[in-house]
């Protein structure tokens, strides 16, 4: 297990989320150190995306505490968390469909990073180049295919200049070459000091980036630590792959 510094970049303590009788997150403890890249795996319905929603403030949690750089996020809105440096992408892309690709990134730069229109435009152009979207900058987002929409999810989150980026299954549906380019991009982000938390089913891509793995099942954290040890854990094998190793 990698060393966790005294002051984690992002920390969830005893987080619970229920919808009526349905408990989606159960006492989740989770933390990420500054500059660390952590992967989250688990079967469908494990609560991974709900954990992202809880961290990003998309909905109120039932109980528990979430801290960003030591600051308790209780009572802060999703918008405030973003401006504090916590960005997220959505598993099913949610672009602003009435706007162009560039306008999506431009508004994120102005609102999330607090940049002027001119600076957000310049930074936005750089991000679109890095994410392979520059040629499509002036196209309406409604005309984009799934892959480009996923790229735009990452580009728009990066435009807010986050300290932490929560990536939700951005690799699904990509070709090997596209996945390779995406992995390179995320490694660059991490090398620049950004903290990365990545939910992904494509393990070989995930393992090229993350140094620590968290496995969730049925709303709980089953195991966490060194990726190979986590994947070899019998409970993880049973929950994630449906069988335990002989």
């Amino acid at each position, binding site marked *: 297990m990698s060393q966790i510094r005294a002051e984690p970049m992002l920390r969830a303590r005893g987080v619970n989320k229920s919808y009526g009788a349905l408990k989606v997150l159960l006492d989740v403890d989770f933390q990420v150190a500054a500059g660390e890249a952590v992967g989250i795996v688990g079967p469908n319905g494990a609560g991974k995306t709900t954990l992202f929603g809880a961290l990003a403030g998309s909905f109120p949690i039932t109980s528990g505490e979430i801290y960003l750089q030591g600051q308790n996020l209780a009572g802060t809105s999703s918008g405030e968390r973003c401006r504090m440096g916590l960005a997220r992408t959505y598993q099913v892309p949610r672009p602003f469909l009435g706007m162009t690709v560039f306008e999506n990134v431009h*508004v994120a730069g102005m609102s999330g990073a607090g940049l002027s229109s001119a600076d957000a435009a310049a930074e936005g152009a750089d991000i679109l180049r890095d994410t392979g979207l520059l040629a499509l900058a002036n196209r309406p987002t409604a005309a984009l295919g799934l892959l480009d929409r996923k790229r735009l999810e990452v580009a728009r989150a990066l435009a807010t200049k986050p300290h932490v980026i929560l990536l939700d299954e951005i690799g699904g549906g990509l070709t090997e070459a596209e996945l390779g380019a995406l992995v390179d991009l995320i490694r660059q982000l991490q090398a620049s000091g950004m903290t990365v938390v990545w939910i992904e089913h494509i393990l070989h891509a995930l393992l090229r980036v993350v140094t620590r793995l968290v496995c969730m099942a049925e709303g709980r954290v089953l195991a966490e630590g060194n990726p190979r040890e986590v994947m070899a854990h019998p409970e993880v094998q049973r929950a994630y792959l449906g069988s335990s190793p002989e």
Partner: protein
Amino acid sequence: MTKTPLLGMASADRRLIWLAASALAVLAILPAFGSALAVDKLTYLFILIMFATMWNLLAGYAGLVSVGQQAFVGLGGYAMVRMVDAGLPPFPAIFIAALCTGVVAWAMSWFVLRMKAGEFAIATWVIAEAIRAMVSFDPIIQGETGTSITALNAYAPEMRRLTIYLLALATTALMVWGSWKLLQGRTGAEAQAIRDDEEAAASVGISTFQVKQRIYILASIGCAVAGTLWLASAITFQPRTGFGVQWSVFMLFMVLVGGIGTFIGPILGALLFFALQEIFGDFGAWYLAGVGIVAILFALYLPRGIVGLWLDKGRDEPLTMRKRLGI
């Protein structure tokens, strides 16, 4: 960092702005040689442009489809009646009444902006009806009979007509220019993001409630200014007319027929609506039939409104708010 500039305004748009500025100058001196009827009709056209611009700001850009803007038309009129009754001169009262209406809109916003889509639309309408009922209980209004702002009769009719005309022209110009600046800036981009996906908008750092609130209050003040100017020209205030849902229907028609979510569409829609009223106005019920037929024809053949003439060819409409990257 590579500087990739935003593309500037198209030269055709620049010419259009010069044309609009020239038209403004001509309109400002028009009463010197135009007939009283022309001045009255143009005043009404300016009021329509204000209504259309404000409703487009609300529904077209922020996605707040209200059918209750008549609440602010009526409240503006009512506040003006009350202020004039308290001894305030009528012309300053127009603007003070509109600002007071903005305070009411601010109070209402905490409630109505928690609602979405259909709920929001219905809530705004219900509140407008509730306010109408409350206003008609005020003894000074005399129920549905209404009241007249007799203080306006202290002015000579020509003077009153000219003052209302110039005030309507100036506020229309200010509102159109103000909404241009607002939409060009960060608020405009944020409103569009909220309109498209409110949760995703919050996730990129937008304070969604505050942006919606700002636009709701501005659009309410705008409708109140237009409404009180209309009242000043009509002199008589009746709750059923001031708070009539027809105001929202007019706004909706002009914006949809012109092109929702575009800057120029509602202005074109207001011009078309004005022309329809002029053509069919003397035919009684046929007037409503004519407006209805035009609405149906647009829905069938030009669903994006007049601006569809450009958009359907893959071109930007004149005075577009699109921000293009020079790539």
